[in-house]
């Protein structure tokens, strides 16, 4: 824009000789001539007055000036005629001279004006074009260059406009390789100038141009328009070439990083993600992009490779498998992995390939790729430690990487590295968590003759398998114990406390005949643990008693269980007791109830009653209503699950567990003692 403004300022000053100066010069010359001819003073003055305006009109640059000059001459002549005593013939001659002079003056002025305008326009155009930052070339119908500005010479790789204008067309074209935006080679018939000559009106064309000699990549937008003659035929083609390399680079960097960021954060499957990142880099940033990560066997594994041609991708994979890089290799990816320093080799010398090749066949294969330029950057973890490398290669495009490309690749490497590290950590930790959780999961419920047991277990949270709720059922000396518990806290700490409480309680219940002793023992164990280890339990000691069974319920800080008798109403059983782990002593009570065949006892955690609905909590009343008419253990739990499903809104907040125990027909000839032995 500034260039244009300068040019406009220069053009606005007209280059013409002032008519007043010319008139003065002519007048003086006339005076001198008449003086020499010995004319009278009267004649000198009058002649000068008449002739000077004519002469001035001849040199005048505009019609107005000439007109004024002629009028001035005419009035001067009239006054002269009246004041003189020449003969009639003299008057006619003089009048004729005046008229002829006037006509010539006007004609001369018009011609002069036209020529001056064309000249000024030409000068204006030339000045404007030569000062344009955009390259402008004008070609004739035979595609010969007839005009080029400075920028054009520079853009097309010539030292001067003259050198460009005298160079043959082929020479100009062969200096570079031209590609479309999508990477395909640009055909000469696609050039906008050619299309204009074919009578088309082509849109601006974006192209990538690679200088064959230096491998420098530039981006251009080319626009062409035709100049037509009176018959509407295209005589000249004006082509404007704008260099948009900087803009294109910034765009590419921004787009690449944004897309890579999106890909990297979209998935924890990092091998797939890295392939996406590699795909993003070709063909705009590089012809080839590969990602390699060292494995535990000391090999640098190629986890992703991208090229716009799938056959070449397959070739590179085979090459990588056949000739794997090792972390112990000198130079290349191994070197980058060791020192974390990125490498930019604008022009890869043949010797380097020879050095890197394992054998002659390897060298041949590598050479067949036609590598010209290469970048290797580390993928760095948050700590700065290289965990892999990103390799980019320019081959068949003939392009050569620049410092700007290196910077972009480094940024890409940093982002990919952090994403890979996160994905790995997540995968490893999930695996560890799942392995541990599997060990902490509630065991399968035992088959207990004369009873049927059913459990519901829903830990809160996606990756959580084990929560703070637990249940267990196991044989004791004179029957069975079933327990449901809840530890305070969350996450891994709660899970480990859950496992502790379950195992301690099981051991204590098997060692003590009285469940009250088992509860007191667990309380002490929890209380003695460092930190606050709080737990609530509800346990039931089951003993067969004829067709029925006796169930002794002990609750410690836990909601009381419900008994559903003969598919009737649900009623609470038992009495409250002190929460475990809070104080060294507590108060707990035993409540014994009889379970007839068909009766169901339901133990649950507060995850059931505390479940959130649209407006309030599930609560004891809804639970009691849901459990009413439960026919057996499974039916009771289904009713709870259905009731919660209908009621709950949003994400499940708390762990939920429930255990239902139904008395079925008594088992014949199976003594509890035998069951304990078989379980032990």
């Amino acid at each position, binding site marked *: 824009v500034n260039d244009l403004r300068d040019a406009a300022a220069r053009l606005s000053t007209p280059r013409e000789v002032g008519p007043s100066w010319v008139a003065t010069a002519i007048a003086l010359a006339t005076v001198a001539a008449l003086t020499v001819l010995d004319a009278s003073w009267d004649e000198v003055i009058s002649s000068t007055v008449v002739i000077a305006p004519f002469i001035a009109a001849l040199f005048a640059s505009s019609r107005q000036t000439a007109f004024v000059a002629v009028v001035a001459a005419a009035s001067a002549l009239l006054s002269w005629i009246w004041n003189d005593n020449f003969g009639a013939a003299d008057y006619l001659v003089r009048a004729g001279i005046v008229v002829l002079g006037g006509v010539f003056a006007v004609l001369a002025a018009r011609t002069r004006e036209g020529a001056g305008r064309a000249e000024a326009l030409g000068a204006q155009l030339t000045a404007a074009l030569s000062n344009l930052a955009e390259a402008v070339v004008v070609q004739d119908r035979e595609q010969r260059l007839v005009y080029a500005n400075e920028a054009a010479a520079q853009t097309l790789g010539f030292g001067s406009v003259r050198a460009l204008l005298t160079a043959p067309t082929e020479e100009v074209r062969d200096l570079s390789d031209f590609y479309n935006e999508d990477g395909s080679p640009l055909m000469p018939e696609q050039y906008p100038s050619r299309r204009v000559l074919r009578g088309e009106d082509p849109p601006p064309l974006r192209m990538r141009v690679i200088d064959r000699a230096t491998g420098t990549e530039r981006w251009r937008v080319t626009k062409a328009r035709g100049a037509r003659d009176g018959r509407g035929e295209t005589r000249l083609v004006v082509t404007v070439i704008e260099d948009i390399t900087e803009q294109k680079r910034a765009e590419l960097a921004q787009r690449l990083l944004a897309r890579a960021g999106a890909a990297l954060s979209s998935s924890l499957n990092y091998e797939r993600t890295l392939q996406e990142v590699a795909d993003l880099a070709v063909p705009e940033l590089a012809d080839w992009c590969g990602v390699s990560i060292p494995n535990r066997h000391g090999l640098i594994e190629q986890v992703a490779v991208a090229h716009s041609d799938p056959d070449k991708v397959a070739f590179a994979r085979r090459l990588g498998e056949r000739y794997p890089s090792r972390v112990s290799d000198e130079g290349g990816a191994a070197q980058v992995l060791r020192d974390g320093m990125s490498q930019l080799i604008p022009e890869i010398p043949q010797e380097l390939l020879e050095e890197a090749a394992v054998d002659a066949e390897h060298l041949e294969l590598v050479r067949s790729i036609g590598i010209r330029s290469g970048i290797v950057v580390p993928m760095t973890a948050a700590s700065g430690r290289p965990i892999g490398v990103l390799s980019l290669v320019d081959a068949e495009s003939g392009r050569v990487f620049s410092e700007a490309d290196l910077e972009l690749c480094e940024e890409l490497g940093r982002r990919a590295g952090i994403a890979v590290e996160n994905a790995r950590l997540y995968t490893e930790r999930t695996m560890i968590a799942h392995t541990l959780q599997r060990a902490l999961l509630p065991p399968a419920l035992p088959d207990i003759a004369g009873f049927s047991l059913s459990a519901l277990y829903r830990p*809160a*949270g996606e990756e959580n398998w084990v929560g*703070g709720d637990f249940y267990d059922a196991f044989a004791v000396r004179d029957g069975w114990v079933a327990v449901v518990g*809840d530890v*305070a*806290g*969350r996450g891994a700490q709660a899970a480990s406390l859950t496992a502790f409480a379950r195992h301690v309680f099981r051991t204590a219940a098997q060692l003590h005949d009285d469940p009250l002793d088992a509860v007191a023992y667990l309380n002490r164990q929890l209380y003695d643990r460092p930190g*606050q280890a*709080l737990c*609530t339990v509800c346990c039931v000691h089951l003993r067969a008693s004829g067709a029925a069974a006796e169930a002794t319920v002990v609750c410690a*800080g*836990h*909601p009381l269980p419900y008994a559903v008798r003969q598919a009737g109403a649900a009623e609470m059983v038992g009495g*409250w*007791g*002190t*929460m475990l782990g*809070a*104080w060294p002593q*507590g*108060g707990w009570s035993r409540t014994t109830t009889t379970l007839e065949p068909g009766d169901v006892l339901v133990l649950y955690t*507060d995850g059931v009653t*505390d*479940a*959130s609905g649209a407006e309030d*909590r599930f609560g004891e009343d809804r639970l009691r209503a849901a459990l009413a008419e439960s026919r057996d253990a499974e039916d009771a739990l289904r009713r709870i699950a259905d009731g919660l499903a209908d009621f*709950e*809104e*949003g*994400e*499940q*907040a*708390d762990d939920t567990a429930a255990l239902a125990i139904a008395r079925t027909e008594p088992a014949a000839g199976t003594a509890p003692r035998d069951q304990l032995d078989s379980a032990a």
Partner: protein
Amino acid sequence: MIAGIPDSDFSVDVHAQGAAQVVVVRGEVDIATADAVRAELHGAFERKATVVLDLREVAFMDTQGLAVVIEAERAAANDGTRFVVARAPDQVHRLFDMIGLTPRLTIVADPAAADS
């Protein structure tokens, strides 16, 4: 936010009342909010004053909330600080009964009575 119920009506404020620090809790104390109550109580105990936990406007408390009250009760017992609880509404107070917490607490109906 882990809990399914919005905790927009939860709040915990502390003010001095004579020599006492009064921690006023409103709304639901659960896994999402218990830590905020714990932090305020901890601060109140640091100031070595009588600590009053005003639960009169607590609508709901789960195991995590109960754990905070138990922790405060134990902390008070350990360092000899006076710890007073202004009684929670019945549905919450019932939990204190259920876990055996009530007899271990000094419970008042009105926090203004805690000074005496």
